[in-house]
């Protein structure tokens, strides 16, 4: 299934692009998406989106179709979902 991903801030820099569409297996989860993004864009991206145990970074801001997603929530994605991955920023 096709998932549209939008990146902001440091994850945008790590991805080298604002957005992209990824092909994932049916019934893929948000965690699967993050692992796919990490594998696709290298070590810097992996550190930003995943902990060493491959679970999502708890301070990453994730929105699925503009609704905030938390690791404690159901994570199955659907064809055509729009996911925003926002790295935390504190520039002042």
């Amino acid at each position, binding site marked *: 299934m096709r998932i549209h991903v939008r990146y*902001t801030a*440091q994850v945008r820099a790590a991805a080298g692009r604002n957005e992209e569409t990824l092909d994932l297996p049916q019934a893929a989860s948000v965690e699967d998406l993050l692992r796919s993004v990490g594998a696709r864009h290298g070590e810097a991206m992996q550190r930003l989106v995943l902990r060493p145990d491959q679970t999502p*970074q*708890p301070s990453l801001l994730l929105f699925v179709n503009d609704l905030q997603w938390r690791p404690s929530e159901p994570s199955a994605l659907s064809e055509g979902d729009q996911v925003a991955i926002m790295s*935390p*920023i504190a*520039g002042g």
Partner: protein
Amino acid sequence: MSVPLNRTGALPVPSERPGRNMLTDEERAIYEWQMWTAGFGERGQDKLKAASVLVSRVGGVGGAAAYYLAAAGVGRLVLAHAGNLRPSDLNRQILMTHDHLGKPRIESAARRLRELNPRVAIEPVGQNIGQQNAADLVGSVDLVVSAAPRFGERLLMNRHAVSRNKPLVDCAMYDLDAQITTVIPGRTPCLACLYPEEPPGWSRQFPVFGAVAGTIGAMGAVEAIKLIAGLGEPLAGKLLVCDLRQMAFRTVAIQRNPKCAVCAGRRAG
């Protein structure tokens, strides 16, 4: 004087507050054009005059916020910022001047704000927010503008703002991205709901144009003025995400974390 929020989560109107100071004729003349704003008027200006705001820090983001809050006539501004001015600060920290290189940043910031509006009580604190001062500084004001370049400082201010029931406007940027949200304790997510721990990938040094930092700082000032005056709708429970590369702005809903270590179980005070 610090005053608790009223039942709607906004700052109380001056008539509910002790020590109300009416505007002088000179102040009416200075603020005349902003008092023409629908829903604001002299009553709104009176609320600004009675209000106190902590801005931490007063660099690219917080400096712009403090500048506009001073211009608008907020009665008392408490500024927290440590360290001496360096050349690399000058592209964005608009309260700092070249003649002040090597001297404390906070002195330059206070001087510029007093030059801009000598009617505002400026209280400079030459320290960053830390365990030693956070409770006192947050407790001494009505509202906090959070603009420090480290998550630790932001999260500490958030903790004390929630505990003291003070609204907090959090403004942040990176590169050409910026974001802002308003924390109203007990009603909205707090910063610890969003960031349950300090993000490991954040670096104190980040790419920044002054105009980007100033954009989100000015928005922070607008949000603070709205909260004080009861004007418009604050970004309560909403995160405004600004992509200034594309000039694209999105507002997304954010949720309280029922397991938040800072605000779980807290209800609007």
